[in-house]
């Protein structure tokens, strides 16, 4: 399969760099670099890393350790750092953390692994070691569907390699050298079974990728005119150029997957019809497309946006924003909205979050970057109403909050402080208080939670309705790209067993590294 349409990732540079050689000068800083020992010492001091207990929770919770068990184990990576062995600087492991912060949120010792690894990554780059990064890209492109999108959205090599051209070239190089046609793969046995996938986001496309490789004929139904899910729709284009999404989708199409765009499966009948039409299994990967509703006085005013709508528009056409923008919410979507607003020319962007720094769901790094760009974050503040003049937003009435008892999510519930109301002048308001899935089209036999997410078996991803599986944001509510990919792969593994009539034990799922290409078929 030739990649005739392969886009050049680096727009300006046309020559290819030798894959194993990233020029040292380009990478190295001028200043005297401290020793690895010194760096580790500083890390210990600064991060107050008392010690790692070696409890293994990080690895147990890490999606990459699940997808790439033979390549990645964050605990072991952490444990190999204090040895100060330069070998670690050349190892691909260092570059395989996907910044999901799951380990950090769960580590009993509060160790911030992604950022610790980041410091060592920087050190590796400054020392002129690039082979780890190159090897990691190879591993990613061989084993993870949507590798380019993942590199940009999850692995973030650009956070330490300042010359973006080098990153772009290296990514392209790694991907080309490891395209399916070039790797010596066993041709897969064709199956007579058909699988329908609803939704072409990362979850759907990953399942499609793995199932196609197992020989199934796969059809993806997508409501929108082009495939890619949130990667296409809402993730800002400055973070992920849409051409790259095209390339990732293309690779999966090349495996023989059929994608029917502009084809919403939006009624119970349509789902039933799929089964009648001869699809042996359905994977529902419709994500969380709707902005959660927030009943607030003034929501109808001109200048009030919903985050997903806003981001979608910003990705396709120009949106007019005024000087002062207030964003309500504290997730990554809020941060993306804030940064997009800034890109669109807003002067003064403030995020209002109703809990404290401790509880904010956005990832620490995103917050740091946003702050560096001049975005303000006001904690423990909640809007009460939006006020306007002549149908246009002019200000928000806010109230200060304090934290009370823990709620069902284990976070402390924010409670308004009586009489602490204050006014905040603003021209635009973006509501980014969460996304929810639209699951009404599913047959009643598919059990849903009160939040309208789909209930599945945690291991097989089967829903309560036979032959219907689900995964990604449609099940998690809101998750991350890597989790969606993991779900897609997990679903493919499980659907394959299901269709072949092999019972599946959760132990198989956890221990059978379904991340591996060509496993077991």
């Amino acid at each position, binding site marked *: 399969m030739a990649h005739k349409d392969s886009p050049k990732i680096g727009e300006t540079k046309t020559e290819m760099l030798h894959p194993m050689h990233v020029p040292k000068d380009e990478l190295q800083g001028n200043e005297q670099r401290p020793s690895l020992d010194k760096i580790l010492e500083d890390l210990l001091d600064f991060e107050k890393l008392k010690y790692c207990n070696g409890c293994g929770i990080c690895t147990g919770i890490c999606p990459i350790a699940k997808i790439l068990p033979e390549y990645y184990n964050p*605990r072991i990576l952490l444990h190999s750092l204090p040895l100060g062995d330069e070998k670690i600087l050349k190892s691909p492991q260092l570059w395989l953390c996907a910044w999901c912060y799951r380990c950090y949120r769960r580590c009993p010792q509060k160790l911030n692994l992604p950022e610790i690894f980041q410091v060592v990554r920087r050190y590796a780059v400054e020392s002129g070691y690039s082979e780890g990064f190159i090897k990691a890209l190879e591993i990613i492109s061989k084993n993870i569907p949507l590798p380019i999108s993942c590199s940009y959205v999850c692995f973030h090599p650009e956070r330490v390699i300042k010359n973006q051209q080098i990153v772009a070239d290296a990514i392209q190089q790694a991907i080309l050298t490891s395209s399916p046609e070039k790797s010596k793969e066993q041709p897969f046995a064709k199956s007579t079974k058909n699988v329908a996938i609803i939704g072409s986001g990362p979850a759907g496309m990953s399942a499609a990728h793995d199932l196609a490789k197992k020989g199934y004929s796969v059809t993806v139904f997508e409501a929108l005119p082009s495939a890619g899910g949130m990667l296409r729709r809402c993730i800002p284009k400055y973070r992920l150029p849409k051409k790259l999404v095209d390339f990732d989708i293309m690779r999966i199409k090349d495996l023989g997957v059929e994608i029917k765009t502009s084809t919403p499966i939006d009624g119970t009948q349509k789902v039933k019809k799929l089964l009648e039409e001869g699809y042996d299994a359905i994977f529902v990967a419709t994500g969380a497309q709707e902005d959660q509703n927030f009943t607030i006085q003034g929501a109808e005013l001109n200048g009030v946006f919903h985050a997903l709508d806003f981001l979608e528009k910003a990705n396709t056409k120009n949106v007019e924003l005024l000087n002062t923008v207030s964003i309500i919410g504290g997730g990554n979507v809020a941060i993306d909205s804030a940064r997009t607003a800034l890109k669109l020319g807003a002067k003064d962007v403030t995020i209002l979050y109703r809990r404290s720094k401790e509880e904010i769901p956005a990832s620490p790094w995103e917050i740091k970057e946003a702050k560096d760009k001049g975005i303000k974050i006001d904690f423990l503040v909640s809007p009460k109403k939006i006020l306007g003049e002549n149908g246009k937003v002019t200000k928000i009435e806010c109230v200060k909050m304090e934290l009370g008892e823990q709620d069902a999510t284990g976070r402390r519930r924010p409670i308004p402080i009586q009489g602490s109301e204050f006014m905040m002048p603003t021209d635009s308001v973006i509501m980014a208080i969460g996304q929810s899935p639209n699951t009404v089209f599913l047959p009643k036999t598919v059990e849903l939670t009160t939040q309208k997410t789909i209930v599945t078996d945690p291991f097989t991803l089967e829903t309560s309705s036979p032959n219907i599986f689900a995964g990604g944001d449609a099940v998690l509510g809101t998750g991350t790209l890597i989790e969606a990919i993991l779900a897609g792969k997990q679903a493919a593994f499980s659907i394959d067993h299901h269709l072949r009539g092999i019972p599946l034990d959760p132990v198989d799922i956890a221990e059978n590294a379904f991340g591996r290409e060509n496993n077991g078929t």
Partner: protein
Amino acid sequence: MEPKIQSKPDEELRIGVYVCHCGKNIAGSVDCADVAEYASKLPNVVLSKHNLYTCSDPGQETIKKDIKEHNLNRVVVASCTPRLHEPTFRRTCEEAGLNKYLFEMANIREHCSWVHLYEPEQATAKAKDLVHMAVARSALLEPQEETVVPVTRQTLVIGGGVAGIQAALDLADTGYKVYLVEKQPSIGGKMAQIDKTFPTMDCSICILAPKMSDVGKHPNIELLTNCEVTEVGGYIGNFQVKVQKNPRYITKDCTACGDCTKVCPVEVPNEFEVGLSGRKAIYMPFAQSVPARYIIDAKSCIGLGENTCAKCKEVCGPDAINFSDKAEEIELKVGTIIVATGLDVFDPVSLMEYGYLRFSNIITSLEFERLINAGGPTGGRLVRPSDMNVPKTVVFIQCVGSRSEKKGNPYCSNVCCMNTIKDALLIKEHWPDVKIYVFYIDIRAFGKGFEDLYRRAKEKGVIFIRGLPAEIIEDNKTKNLWLVGENTLEKKIYTVNAAMVILSVGLRPRDDSEKVQQLLRLSKTTDGFFMEAHPKLRPVDTPTGGVFLAGCAEGPKDIKDSVTQASAAAARAGILMAKGSVTVEALTPTMLSDKCMGCGLCARVCPYNAIIVDKEKKLATVIEAACAGCGTCGAECSFNAIQMRHFTDDQIFAQIDAATAKDADKKIIAFCCNWCSYAGADFAGVSRMQYPSSVRIIRTMCSGRISPKFVERAFARGAAAVLVAGCHLNDCHYIDANYQTKRRVEKLWKKMERLGLDKNRLQLAWISAAEGEKFASKIREMQRIVEGATKLEIEKTVQSLAQKKVNVVTEVAKA
């Protein structure tokens, strides 16, 4: 009152200085010979020596010999913290015929060599300053006579767990009267709830119950259950304690027949069974309760007050029910107090990922104790809550709420590993087919017989997997639990299915321990348990004289250690009472009648109401017995009419002046209270926490002694920054004297603002004895202030404060 002993006024001062190497502890970074050489040139110093170990016998002998041979009338030892060896050297002086109040110490170890390990020059320079300060102060010391007070030969034991029980029995057997105060209706504590005890697998209640009944019967023990201590006054040997006796509503006539519970219509969760079963509103806490008397739980009874259920009263044969029972207040006089208030267990609800309360088949290890106990709610049958069947697979998760920086506590709880091994063996004993997994980080089997028990568990087939579950997922249908985590030895992910999960919860300080802490003016270590006076040498003493610790109140430990400690505490208390008297330090104030105007300011700030003001005679007098010697009055008096014995204004001025004699503009003068912040600085030293060497610490008993004029003097002498440090508010060793400190510093800030000075240069900090790191980082922070203080700013301060006439100019300041 005038001092009892007067120094001979025209006596020539003859000061001897001893600089200790403390092996390499001091000499490692301080040039002791150089310091001794420097000291020899200070005014009035007639002899200056340095030696390897001053505290050793030969070291002490040298001092004694010198006192006699050289007629020394002041002795200064520069070595470790006075909190360690001041008593030693004071004794040395006394043995040589020198009043012990003429001895002074310079702390060049904890406050110098250990905290400036890598800066020998600065450390040596600082040691010189510290010696200078001590010499200057010693010149102004006066001999004092201590008062001897009798010790009441009675003890109060707070808490009737196994530790309190043991301490009470030991002292009662020795012949002392013991009051044992227990909050609950029965004594027994946690040990009464446990099924078997590791490492011997004894039946817990079988070995505890006889001790409990001994307590109940002992002629020397007055058992006060359902009681709480509400007030503690007085001091070592002479405490006045108020105890509130909560109503029991059942008289002594109760025969424990139990007829009442049968008719009581109210059922509530049973605390003793950790809520696994119910009890009535009238109940006996558990079968072996001591006293074996029923009690009515006022919160749930519907017969008290307006309502008249009274079903129990109708059936009670001996008519032992008294609905109009009232709370009583009892006053006790005791000489010693033993705190044995025990522990709480960690509540795992906050660890969302472990699903406690969300998933029915997850229980805690304490719940398990009741579940496996023959006297428990299931009669000892191990069943899981969802279907009351015996589980096929049981999982134990270790370190729940322990060894975590995030949720729970950072320390190891000491008993959970062995407890789990014990529990696993108990299951195997009765149901050998149950598969048992233990997920752990480290198995800590450190005690006598522990490793043996661990081996036995392995022999019985208990599976130990290193790596805690990262996720627990409940299977909706079977209510079984899936555990996913990393087997860190195998470096692979495991997925284990279990019918029941037991969370091995850690031990933590009791929620209500703060109250006891404040009543007795105790300190807590950073983990929240009560702090001992010295972790090695005085492990059951507290900083408060006459108060001792036993059991888990001091830290997580097992029964054996709790009992050992209880006997130790009893012995320590016994020593005091056997002696029958103690001397109290001569720290009380002397009122100078010629200066006192009778304004009563001092009386207003005295936390002990120990000052009486005669408005007519215009004179304040101190009630010596009530005074604790904090010195708050001394700091308040604006007429210099109060002279604090052993901490006089002049002595402190002399220290300030000596500290600021050279390079004042690069220095921090820190006033620290003896109990918390000075001890906190000691702790920083012991822990070798490094911080800038610019600080010079001056010790007072309480931060309440720190008069604004001391701060002003330091600034007037050109100090770059001043730190005032005391115990945390509400943790003051003199009730609430540190609120005066706060008020005074705030006033000083206002004044500095008014004078256009940078008020940042005066810092106030609350640092507990356990907060060495806080002290160190405060000094690091203040170093930046020192570096930021310009010559101009300092000059301006000196001028604006020097305008005020400084009354006392000591000899040393000129030197």
